[in-house]
């Protein structure tokens, strides 16, 4: 179960990071606000999941999020890609939300009330992410570039064997501030 928690937490953190790259440059302002908010939600989910994962093993959420090597992350290939094209970003969003919904259902059925409770809480926010993904899907589903992106990215959804070089670059940026300080620095 801890493995699954970390898997989801890593997915949410990395995807939140990638989605936040659209802040300030989304196709139009309303979408900028909406998509940035989704990105922020994902990072919030990651934080809560890391806290649960850290609970039993004497570490902290921050250490799990930022102090591991890139090869130790369990996120899927789907979320780590840098996708500067809107139709590919939306394709990833749609694929991710579908897979995430199924995974959250399993987590909600957990015997651990803390895990089941957190999954239910996260799912209540994900409902709006799914609405957002569906409305974009409806809008773009006839666009060849979007259809192509869906086909291109679909095989990567559950692909967790190995990472692309893009994760390493992202990790460098994501952890540079922490790494610039001696271990044990309090912020």
């Amino acid at each position, binding site marked *: 179960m801890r493995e699954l928690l970390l898997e989801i937490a890593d997915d949410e953190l990395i995807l939140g990071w990638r989605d936040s790259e659209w802040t300030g440059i989304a196709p139009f302002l*309303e979408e900028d606000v909406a998509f940035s908010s989704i990105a922020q939600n994902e990072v919030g989910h990651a934080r809560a999941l890391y806290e649960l994962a850290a609970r039993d093993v004497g570490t902290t959420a921050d250490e799990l999020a930022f102090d591991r090597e890139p090869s130790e992350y369990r996120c899927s290939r789907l979320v780590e890609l840098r996708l500067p094209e809107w139709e590919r970003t939306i394709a990833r969003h749609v694929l991710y939300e579908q897979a995430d919904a199924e995974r959250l259902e399993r987590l909600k059925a957990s015997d651990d009330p803390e895990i089941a409770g957190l999954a239910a809480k996260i799912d209540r926010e994900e409902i709006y992410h799914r609405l957002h993904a569906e409305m974009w899907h409806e809008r773009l589903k006839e666009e060849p570039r979007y259809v192509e992106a869906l086909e291109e990215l679909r095989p990567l959804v559950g692909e967790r064997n190995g990472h692309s070089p893009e994760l390493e670059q992202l990790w460098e940026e994501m952890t540079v501030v922490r790494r610039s300080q001696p271990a044990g620095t309090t912020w």
Partner: protein
Amino acid sequence: MIYEVFRQERKGQPFQHAGSVEAADERFAEAYAREQYGRRGESVALWVVERGSIMRIDEFVDELNRNYHRVDGYPLKEKLKEARARAAARDR
């Protein structure tokens, strides 16, 4: 399209204009309205309506200046002031 958003802060209170969102259709308008006016728990309900569906009335003809139709046609302020002064004088 522009959609006007009205929000209700607590059950039973009147809806008040909160602002507007620009969206391609109703689904997008719903998503953006939720995002901008409901996400922080500041509303219990929203009304979202396409701007073109709102009837605007802004001319109120009063050719004969019948000011007794208006609330400002019968100024109470002065009368109240006088009444208060009288009451104060009596109680002294």
